[in-house]
């Protein structure tokens, strides 16, 4: 083994140990807040592991959605879910149950480890085929080709799931809040660090978000990663009180939410006429059509993530005067 190989092995081993340590802390932390912080740290370390696994697209998604957006939602929930310590300790299982759970979880983990090591070598897969069929489409990133072309139906259903989840979250509100604005309302900050950040960051963030969504077809990036950054910019401005969440009854917001999946469906159906069928693209038009879908999708992903972070409406609608 070369020196590079040994160094890489040491680096990977160290990274794996850190990932597991952060996961252990997330479980063992004395309270929900440090546990959630541990989870965010875990996610960032995992992002590095994804880079080491040769998956920069996944690393970006893990950082943006798996760690960033998920972390924000969990932290907001921790703050609002205070108390209940007695209830929690009363419901904590006894020693015997913990032991049984440990044995079960350990057995599953061990079986899985053995199974992974027993997977066939050379590994079967679609790497060569996916790579070979990406270039003729005019795309440079095979992951984007899988997401938008070969397995486009996965992505379409997933974007529908995202939009649907926004509606599901809204529907948890009490009846009287319907038509109100999602989430808590933050006081407007005119000076202080947050106000400064909320004015300086969004212009830069918007450019970066759009850039990452735009390069996705040729380089690591794409609608989910770029859309998350756009959503984050809105959340910063929202938390500083500079913008208000739109009412759940606002048709423009709903249109923005469904734009991505709806454009995807329409282009897909157009495939019956202009190409070989549903979700097929004519070779010459493949890239422009995909970019149109990606643009609409970026908008929808950004809106959906921002609104999922905000949550259900928490106040009755304001009276129109």
């Amino acid at each position, binding site marked *: 083994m070369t020196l590079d190989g040994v160094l890489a092995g040491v680096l990977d081993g160290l990274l794996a140990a850190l990932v597991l340590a952060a996961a252990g802390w997330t479980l063992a932390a004395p309270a929900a807040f440090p546990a959630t912080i541990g989870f965010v740290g875990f996610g960032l370390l995992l992002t590095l*592991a994804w880079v080491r696994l*040769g998956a920069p697209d*996944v690393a970006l998604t893990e950082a943006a959605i798996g760690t960033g957006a998920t972390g924000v939602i969990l932290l907001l929930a921790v703050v609002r879910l205070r108390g209940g310590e007695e209830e929690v300790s009363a*419901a904590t*299982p006894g020693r015997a149950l913990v032991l049984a759970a440990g044995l079960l979880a350990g057995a599953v983990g061990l079986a899985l*480890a053995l199974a992974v090591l027993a997977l066939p070598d050379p590994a079967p897969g679609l790497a*060569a085929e996916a790579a070979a069929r990406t270039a003729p489409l005019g795309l440079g990133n095979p992951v984007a080709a*899988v997401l938008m072309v070969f397995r486009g139906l996965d992505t379409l259903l997933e974007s529908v799931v995202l939009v649907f989840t926004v509606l599901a979250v809204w529907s948890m509100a009490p009846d009287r809040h319907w038509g109100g604005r999602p989430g808590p309302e933050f006081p407007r900050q005119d000076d202080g660090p947050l106000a400064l950040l909320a004015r300086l960051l969004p212009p830069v963030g918007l450019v970066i978000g759009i850039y990452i969504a735009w390069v996705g077809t040729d380089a690591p990036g794409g609608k989910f990663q770029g859309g998350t950054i756009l959503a984050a910019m809105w959340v910063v401005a929202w938390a500083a009180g500079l913008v208000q969440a739109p009412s759940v009854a606002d048709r423009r917001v709903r249109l923005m939410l469904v734009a991505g999946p709806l454009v995807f469906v329409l282009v897909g159906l157009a495939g019956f006429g202009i190409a070989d069928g549903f979700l097929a693209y004519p070779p010459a038009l493949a890239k422009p059509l995909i970019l149109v879908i990606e643009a609409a999708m970026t908008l929808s992903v950004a809106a959906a993530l921002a609104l999922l972070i905000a949550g259900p409406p928490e106040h009755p609608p304001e009276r129109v005067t």
Partner: protein
Amino acid sequence: MSGAPIFGLTGAALVGLGLFGLLVQAAVLRKILAFNLLGAGVFLLFGVVAQRGGTAGGGADAVPQAMVITGLVVAFAATALAVVVALRMHQITGAATISESDGAEPGGSDAA
């Protein structure tokens, strides 16, 4: 291709840890955190499979990688939904666990 076995074992260990947490943690938020660890372990295994299936000259297998991206978005939606239901439960009943210790009658309609 050096990292695959190490991260494969890491993924398996994360699945075990997440499963354990889901079973023994009482507080709902801690359960949701454990669910995310479990999910991360599964996704890591997809990454390992993608790297093992990579071509000699080119990169890893793009198909499982794309599946992870889809899976991450779906897992995020699941977390958002679970958190909202947990918060609503807490708002209305003050509960922070899903155990049935308080003898509240589950289900059944009693409009009277």
